[in-house]
């Protein structure tokens, strides 16, 4: 009986000693984790300046290009919302001595697609297809492309590759009245909106 009581006292002591250890390991188990993913919504161009070169009255000229297009607009978004690309001109081609009417400056959207392999064709989103030919620039925003219209790929969220829209440009130099000799310029603006 004395030996049995001794065993019980030892067991109780072991429980009492081990209990604090058990409670310490349970209190260190919680960890709060959080992350904020920023919104991505931007576009970039392959050409920030476009030069038609030297022309004469009556000339019709496309912007020279070896890539098959004169400019490429790359659009990226991760918002999941439909987005749009629009284009407009600030005004006619102007110089110190005169201007070339904007009706002579035109654009064409030749292709839209995923900007990396496997390069899915998203041209269904183009408002004006290449077959529609050249479109006259205006000073109002003209719709070029709408995302999320392709059954192949929904590009409302298109990271990391983005969507590219390719452009060609043409100029018909008037012949009557013909422009004075000189250097003419204007600014073309591309806008991406939701």
């Amino acid at each position, binding site marked *: 009986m004395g030996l049995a009581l001794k065993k019980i006292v030892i067991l109780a002591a072991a429980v009492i000693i081990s209990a604090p250890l058990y409670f310490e390991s349970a209190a260190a188990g919680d960890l709060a984790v959080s992350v904020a993913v920023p919104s991505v919504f931007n576009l970039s161009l392959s050409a920030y300046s476009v030069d038609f070169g030297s022309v004469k009255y009556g000339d019709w000229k496309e912007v020279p290009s070896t890539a098959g297009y004169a400019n490429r607009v790359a659009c990226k978004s991760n918002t999941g919302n439909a987005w749009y690309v629009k284009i407009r001109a600030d005004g006619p081609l102007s110089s110190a001595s005169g201007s070339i009417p904007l009706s002579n400056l035109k654009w064409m959207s030749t292709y839209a697609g995923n900007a990396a392999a496997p390069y899915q064709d998203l041209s269904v989103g183009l408002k004006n297809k290449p077959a529609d030919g050249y479109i006259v620039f205006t000073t109002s925003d003209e719709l070029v492309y709408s995302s999320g219209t392709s059954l192949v790929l929904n590009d409302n969220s298109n990271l990391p590759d983005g969507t590219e829209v390719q452009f060609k440009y043409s100029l018909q130099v008037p012949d009557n009245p013909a422009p004075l000799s000189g250097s003419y310029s204007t600014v073309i603006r*591309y806008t991406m909106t*939701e």
Partner: protein
Amino acid sequence: MIKKAVIALAVIIFAEGAALALSASQQTTFTVTVSSIFELSIDQGMVDFGRMKPGETKWNMPSSGVNVVAKTNNGKPWYIKVSNSSPLNSANNIIPNNNFYWSGWTDGTGKWYGSASDQISTAPKIVYGSGVGEENNLPNGTANHFKFKLAVPSNQAPGFYMTTVKFTMTE
């Protein structure tokens, strides 16, 4: 009072919602250089007075006139002058320039400086000055028409006489 506050709050919320609409923009500068045009052309390169006897005079050669067209888009006043390289000559003989005359008319709006009896000279003489709007007269240009008169001196030696008449366009 409460209603006004609610409306104001709604307006603020709406305004913030509008501000959240995403938009991004980039721009490309387009340039083109329209080249300078400054051209003078004539519709015929030869005027032949044919066979003439000493003392003979021929007027209005050629009968249709020489059509001289000037084109420019430089935006500046310009002039046409006429001269010849030397008097009509054959070997060592010449027909002095005081026997060789030019005349004509213009289709332009500028000033025609000629009279019916202007002698050709080796020094360029002004014929025409551009008028209003002709600083840029593309695409058709401005046409001037010339005819020539030659009086062969009565003691002129026989021969085949030639000279080159030059029309010059300057700013």
